[in-house]
């Protein structure tokens, strides 16, 4: 009688204690397939750092719906084959609740069928060539409709440029960006006098520069793969004495700064610059510096969307009241977050209106802000998705 009552209470206490343990040990897993090796390996560490900071901040405030967030990072080798392995292992073995990452277009395209099969929400945080649509995917980074116009408009207005020469790497991003650029230039009354591509790992731009000199354009716009191709092209352009207005659609602040004197004058356009003068950005930069110290990889236009995406997921789960994929997907289309880039909401056909910054690389490596464009619309990216 007494023994039974106390036994029952002990059992109940133990049971609820175990349940609490289970609840605490039931984290929400965020899968991050990213290019730790391969073409994206230079920028991947900054993306992982951004995700780590977001997770740490959210967990410190109690997690999401009382559950802690946990990161599962997998290497997609920056390509299709690696992405298949990474997505498979994250979705079916580690059973993550969501995928949040930045990847090459090749990797993303290979991973999407797996995302559909696994019915996992996916926030893609990399800028890309646009028009990639999947029931489970949302994008919080820019598309050409947002990034190209500022550069072309600037050259046409300031440099009175009419003839443009386009150079790119031969893959989805390079071709997609330049296809959009060509159409936009045509719409604005300009002319494209040349369009040349080199394979992604190509480093010899001799023939391209030869054609460029023959075509005598007023301005150059390039969209190469990140990292080495940007550097080799810029070095060889400068070695050949080309000083034309040069807009680079695919170089990040960090690489542009490192390139030194060769990069002077390059015009870049993006949704993030480290010197954005807002309280949220200043707080973000300070927090990153405090957490990572001298191991900090400069936040950039590919890593900051990752940070904001984790917060967007948190908002979606809280609005949906669970991590159920269908409910989260519905919520992701409406939630918003205040991030270093401003207010981010993926409510335009799963893409987000963004404030774009036009900058020019200076001789000392700094970026001078030329113009700011508030809340640029991403255009009709996925008209067939409801």
């Amino acid at each position, binding site marked *: 009688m007494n023994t039974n009552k106390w036994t029952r209470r002990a059992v109940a206490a133990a049971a609820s204690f175990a349940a609490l343990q289970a609840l605490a040990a039931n984290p929400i897993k965020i899968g991050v397939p990213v290019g730790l090796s391969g073409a994206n390996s230079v920028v991947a560490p900054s993306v992982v750092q951004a995700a780590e900071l977001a997770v740490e901040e959210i967990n410190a405030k109690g997690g999401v719906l009382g559950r802690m967030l946990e990161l599962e990072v997998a290497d997609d080798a920056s390509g299709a084959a690696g992405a298949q392995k990474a997505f498979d292992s994250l979705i079916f073995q580690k059973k993550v609740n969501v995928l949040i990452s930045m990847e090459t277009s090749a990797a993303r395209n290979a991973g999407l069928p797996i995302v559909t099969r696994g019915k996992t929400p996916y926030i893609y945080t990399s800028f890309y060539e646009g028009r990639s649509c999947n029931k489970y995917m949302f994008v919080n980074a820019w598309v050409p409709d947002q990034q190209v116009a500022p550069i072309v408009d600037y050259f046409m207005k300031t440099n009175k440029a009419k003839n443009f020469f386009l150079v790119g790497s031969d893959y989805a991003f390079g071709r997609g960006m330049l296809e959009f650029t060509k159409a936009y230039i045509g719409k604005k009354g300009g002319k494209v006098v040349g369009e*040349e591509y080199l394979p992604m790992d190509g480093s010899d731009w*001799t*023939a391209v520069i030869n054609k460029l000199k023959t075509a005598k354009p007023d301005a150059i716009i390039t969209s190469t793969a990140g990292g080495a191709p940007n550097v080799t092209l810029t*070095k060889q352009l400068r*070695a050949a004495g080309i000083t034309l207005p040069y807009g680079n659609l695919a170089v990040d602040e960090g690489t542009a700064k490192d390139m030194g004197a060769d990069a002077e004058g390059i015009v870049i356009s993006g949704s993030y610059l480290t010197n954005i003068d807002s309280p949220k950005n200043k707080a973000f930069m300070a927090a990153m510096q405090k957490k990572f110290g001298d191991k900090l990889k400069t936040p950039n236009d590919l890593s900051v969307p990752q940070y904001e995406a984790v917060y967007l997921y948190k908002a979606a789960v809280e609005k949906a009241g669970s991590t159920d994929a269908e409910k989260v997907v519905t919520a992701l289309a409406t939630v918003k977050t205040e991030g270093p880039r401003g207010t981010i909401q993926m409510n335009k056909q799963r893409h987000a209106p963004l404030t774009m910054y036009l900058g020019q690389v200076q001789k000392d490596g700094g970026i001078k802000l030329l113009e700011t464009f508030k809340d640029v619309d991403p255009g009709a990216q996925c008209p067939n998705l409801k």
Partner: protein
Amino acid sequence: MSLLLDILSTAAILFIVSCGLLLIFGVMKIINFAHGGFLTLGGYAPLLVTQWGWSPWAGGAVAFVIGIGCGALVERFIVRPLHSRPLDAILATWGLGIVIGQLITLAFGRGVQFAASPLSGTVHLFGTEYSVYRLALIGMSLAVAAAIAGVLNGTRLGLITRAVTMNETLARGLGVNSARVRLSTFAFGAGLACLAGALITPLSSVDPNMGVPWLTNAFMLAMISGTSLLSLGVACLLLGGAQVLVSVFGSPVLGALTIVVLGALVLRIRPGGFARG
């Protein structure tokens, strides 16, 4: 006119990159697949030189010395034990190339690095602006060719190297220490690869994978040149010229295939390649 200069400078770069591979192939009858790794290793020498504050011109010399040292070690400990198994030796060099790339990544990081260039700017030539460095490379390739020819034809080591190239068994029968020749050839070939890596950095980026794309073209050029440096020069001019022409009048994407496709065709028609006899 600038098209002609493009062809000459492209041929020059191809020659500098491939001559080390050809030497090793000629003497040891194996293709050193770590060639791309040595190119990359040499590419980082200008970076070190910049960090130490030396003159950028020292980059090539430092690279050459590093190459000889590493080449000698590799030959002694990896290639020589596999002397009687050439296919395994080739595989071993392939693995070595991967290891070198990863070691460089561990030491310097994955990112693209920047090294000071010894020559920059353009010169006004025949009505167009042309890169001074590319022109200098034409001169440098001729100097390298002359140096190799000088060593091969003017020194005793060169003499016995040529003997081993022609027929190793016979040379050993005559008392030539072929093991020493193999060691010195591999070291020299690796040194040339590193030198080439250092010489191409002003036009390319310094990163752990910079040497890899050159390997295929160098391999094809070495295959069709037999054992003669002169044939290599001719091959670089012809195939390099074809690559430039296809890139300019067709597309650079096709141009990247030219050397490999033409090389395969040449070998099909004339298995001896460009070598005479």
